[in-house]
């Protein structure tokens, strides 16, 4: 499936037209929605953290762009997680309607990999500024 068709399948109108399968137990629908909302809050928290690092921290001595190196990926991660959370909500709802097993989530992987990367960057920035 091409990217444009994949994106079109995520639009609310397309999702609302999905009448395959049967309406799942409301509790499952609500649980899926809460999972999406929890990821949304995680995304917002990452944006807050990134903005706070760039705007509020004192600059690292010797590494003028150090704050941006740490903060900007956090903000970008927030945007990525928000989109991924919506896509997974759509796919989970689709699977729930059809009684299929839920698709495996890639979001923990995205979060863990990016946070690890940012931690490594932060460590390097701190080390450089400590040596100066």
């Amino acid at each position, binding site marked *: 499936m091409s990217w444009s068709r994949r994106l079109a399948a995520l639009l609310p109108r397309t999702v609302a037209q999905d009448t395959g399968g049967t309406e799942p137990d409301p509790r499952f629908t609500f649980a899926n929605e809460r999972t999406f909302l929890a990821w*949304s809050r995680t995304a917002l928290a990452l944006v807050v953290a990134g903005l706070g690092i*760039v705007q509020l921290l004192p*600059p690292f001595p010797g590494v003028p762009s150090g704050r941006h190196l740490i*903060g900007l990926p956090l903000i970008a991660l927030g945007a990525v997680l928000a989109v991924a959370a919506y896509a997974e909500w759509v796919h989970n709802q689709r699977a729930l309607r059809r009684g299929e097993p839920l698709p495996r989530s890639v979001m923990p992987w995205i979060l863990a990999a990016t946070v690890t990367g940012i931690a490594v960057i932060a460590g390097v920035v701190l080390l450089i500024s400590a040596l100066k």
Partner: protein
Amino acid sequence: MTVPAGPGRPEPGDSPEERDPGLARERTSLSWTRTAISFAALGGVVLKDNVITGLIVLAVAPVIWQLGRVTRGRGPQADLPAVGATRLFIITVSIVAVSLLCLAIAIFGRAVPGALR
């Protein structure tokens, strides 16, 4: 999933647990409130740096709270998912828009050196 069916089963609406199995609706409503508060928190952080953008983000919070009102209703639950996609889509679009605004502030904005010192 397994609601005991039998002659002694109370009619829906008799108890909170019957009206709302697992209190799923209640918990989802609270989750919407938390999400709205998260938007307000982000708005507060942005407000410190860029007043107009901060006010925009703060204005999103009551909108999100209003979106959650569907789960607070007492109507039949069957018609929820049709509107669900649009509501959640609005959240995603808001977060992406706010992230882009924050990226712009972070890159072009005037940093307050040592604000946390």
